[in-house]
């Protein structure tokens, strides 16, 4: 195989995919340009703002920091995949209800961070939610709205039971 291009096999949003690309291509660009998944956004390009978060093997990672060669055989869930998960429906509804975001640029990254939290904790408290969001910067300052959305969603689940 020429050094410029590698063949990558990995799972993207629960589907097996095969990609040929330069080994140094960023996961962020693979998602946006090779797969047209534009929900993952480029913010700071340094792993500080969290706009580019995805789930890799169940853990949140900054896709701006992941080169293609690290992807082989991994499972990637982008925001598009997460939004289609049943377990995330309540959160999505709560956000819409309380208009948690302002400009919305950071929203994908925040939802991925929350999805990672919810995979390990069903009903997180406010401190846990804030800690999970500690890698997401919102220039509009909408954190309190997001925390409220997650707590409301948990409260709704408690009242009506899980699906």
């Amino acid at each position: 195989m020429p050094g410029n291009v590698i063949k990558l096999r990995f799972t993207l949003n629960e589907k097996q995919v095969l990609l040929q690309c330069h080994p140094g291509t960023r996961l962020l660009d693979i998602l946006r340009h090779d797969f047209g998944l534009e929900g993952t956004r480029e913010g700071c390009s340094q792993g500080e703002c969290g706009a580019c978060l995805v789930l890799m093997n169940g853990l949140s990672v900054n896709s701006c920091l992941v080169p293609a060669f690290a992807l082989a055989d991994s499972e990637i869930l982008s925001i598009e995949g997460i939004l289609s998960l049943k377990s995330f429906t309540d959160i999505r509804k709560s956000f819409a209800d309380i208009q948690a975001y302002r400009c919305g640029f950071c929203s994908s990254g925040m939802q991925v961070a929350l999805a990672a939290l919810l995979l390990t904790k069903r009903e997180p408290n406010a401190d846990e939610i804030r800690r999970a969001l500690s890698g997401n910067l919102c220039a509009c300052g909408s954190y309190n709205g997001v925390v409220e959305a997650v707590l409301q969603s948990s409260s709704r689940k408690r009242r009506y039971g899980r699906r």
Partner: protein
Amino acid sequence: MKEVRVFRPKSLGGTLRLYTRNPDSLLYAGGTEIVRRVQRGSGRVFAFPQKVIYLGNVQELNRISRSQRYLDIGSALDLSRILKLGRNVLPPVLFEPLSGIATPAVRNLATLGGNICVRSCRGDSLPALSVIDAQLELRTAGSTRWTTVGSFVSQRGRPQLRPGEILTRIRVPLEEWDFALFRKVGGRRRRRTLSFAGVARFPKGSIEVLHFCLGGLKTPVLRVPGLESRLKNASIPVSTKLIDSLLADLDAALGSEVEDSPEGRYRKATARRLFRWFMEKVNSRSLEML
């Protein structure tokens, strides 16, 4: 676009042999510091050197083993997995800096080995590893040696790796300390942070051993052995007179460690305050124990 060849060894032996044959390769584990350095203006493709050895699949570098006396941490293990050990297993003075590195998502990628070997030697873990006398295992295809953090980090801030050497394990002693503390100043606000790690043991009313270390100055990992030895056998609580005298020693040690600028003067003054604060905490703790 430059050609980049990526090797993906699965065993340590294979990795070491590969590295011996290709000493100009970039060793890549979590890569969170590397990718910041190699990004190009167009941003799409990391400008890696021609050869990269990816350590993510090397079993021996991605595991933790534990004995009664030590914890051996693989250098390519990500920080999140290390932190899962919890404060009861990981020494608190090490748990604090690791849990404060970057963000949760970055800690899912970044490794302890990377934090130790980062080019500027300003990894947050270094002061803590220094004070607890952690040992670093460095291996080539034909040799193994152990060294301390202080010896590993040069005065000029470069990791002292010999040709063909890879950092493979970090051996963390599981000693009990009467008091341990880590503090970082700066964080996201500042280009350069200042950190302080300190541990002490003081059975029977006097200091048996006290180590402290400042990170982030010109000397990346600053220990002051003379000051530490003055505290050995000192009765506690340590008197204000002695603390002031020790601060004078510290001033001498800090003399050339900061530049003459507002930032440098702040860092020097803060280093002094950190030490005083640590000593006051030692005193408080010792009184609690009496």
